[in-house]
């Protein structure tokens, strides 16, 4: 459908999200800003890429859930909070910052979809 050339853009231009925590497990939502951007997100933001993004935190497992009607992904990262709210030495014991960290991931965007992205319209 989109035959135009792809450009690299950060995910935060296509999607927003929030981190939640329970114990030593984190969940991160990735929600499309626009329906036209959803197929790009669904195709490219894989569990493998998310696991690689957080490799320094050594998640033992990353699950990806697809919520097509909400045009959202939900990632569940096991054992990624260095012990979680009670035992982590990290200042951010909840891992609240993880969603905004993930949104820095680069995706390849067909250039004609740039008009649906947030932020500056120049690539």
């Amino acid at each position: 459908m989109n035959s135009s050339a792809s450009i690299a853009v950060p995910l935060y231009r296509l999607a927003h999200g929030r981190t939640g925590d329970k114990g030593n497990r984190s969940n991160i939502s990735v929600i499309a800003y626009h329906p036209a951007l959803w197929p790009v997100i669904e195709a490219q933001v894989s569990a493998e890429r998310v696991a690689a993004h957080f490799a320094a935190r050594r998640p033992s497992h990353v699950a990806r859930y697809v919520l097509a009607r909400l045009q959202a992904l939900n990632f569940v990262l096991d054992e990624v909070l260095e012990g979680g709210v009670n035992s982590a030495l990290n200042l951010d014991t909840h891992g609240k910052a993880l969603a905004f960290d993930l949104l820095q991931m680069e995706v390849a965007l067909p250039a004609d979809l740039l008009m649906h992205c947030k932020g500056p319209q120049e690539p």
Partner: protein
Amino acid sequence: MAHPIPDLTSPRWPGGPASAATPLLVGCGAGFSGDRTDAARPVVDALMAAGQPAVLIFETLAERTLALAQLARERDPQAGYEPLLADLLRPVLADCLAHGIRIVSNFGAANPEGAAACIAALARELGIRVPRMALVLGDDLMGAAHAQALQAACGADWPTARVVSANAYIGAQQIAQALQQDAEIVIAGRVADPALVLGPAAAWHGWAWDDWDLLARGTMAGHLLECGSQVSGGYFADPGYKDVPDLAHVGFPIARIEADGRCTISKPENTGGLINAQTVKEQLLYEVHDPAAYLTPDVVADISQASVTEVGPNQVCLDGVRGHARPSHLKVNVCSERGWLAEAEISYAGAHALARAQLARQIIATRLGAQGRLRCDFIGVASVLGDDDSQWLAQLPSDSSAPRDVRVRWAWEQPTARAAEVLLREVNALYTCGPGGGGGVRTQLRSRLSTVSCLIARDLVACGWRWWRAAGECA
């Protein structure tokens, strides 16, 4: 007052709605212990103006909060409930009672009885009558009667240190029963957060406790409300990408819950914040794992086919939630003591700040050796995104692009306060023994808690509720 007062003698609370079409309004006045204490006032104003049957909830109990409350109660038998309780209720209690707005909360924490006494004292201070208060009980599993079952359920995870609290997440049925018996305030401890909304919704609409779709819808309405303004523009703003007006006066949410379980989230007029599809989706997925199986004591909610629709300015409808039979077991959190945490910081700024910070990091690591977990962060470079092993910090470039203002922060876990103090002394000694130009040392030492979760058979947890009576009052 021009506001109409709903007829509370109608059969609606006891025995279900007089009219199947009458929705219930549930407003949220707090989303955690420590939330703004002026948030409930505009919510109550909106509920009064609506003149419909209404409930105000306060959610003030996180995983850690209950253990802290139990420790507070050990020190003072009158304490152990939400410390800000009187501040939360003072602005709204008189109007809620006068206008039939029921109050439902987990602000009882480790001492629902104490919370009720506090509210009675507040009522006397305000010169109003003492409300009819119900206490939800049974979540506290600290007694000897449960010790064996809990140890078996936790298995190898059972803490070796002293257990501070053990609480089951109980469901909404006791809340609903108390409301149907005409309770004006329902005071719970560790109920599942969304039960604060499901209880009133099920009581008002007369939902059956095995109508899983309805229970799931009430539960997810509760999930949207339970974190206060996190659904109405709080914890959402990202300037230029997700702009939210007037967060200084963010409006807390109100759910309109229909008899078929659909809910519409809105907020009071003339408040800040924002409710749109984006804010609701973020909160809908908050702390959710498998969207098809969100586990609660009352129902397994399924939002895999849920949809959100903007139905007006700052009004979003949640639809498509389904439910499955409730789990056979209840989740229990067991909190225990967990040694001590020492934290210390020092700043390096100006020329070669990062290089001096790296040197300080190496010096402290050498001085403390391999005893206990030690973490180091460079605030100004990476305050939270680094790792416990400092691999991330070690690979930072030290060229001219390096930051020129770095605050080094250490965290160290030790079994005793005396052992943990060593970090504080070592960082303080960097003043004279460390790299040049370090300044602004701050240190703190505090005890820690540890939580493990386990599952316990439902019939081992004796949930119930009873009326509160002032000390000395006859039963």
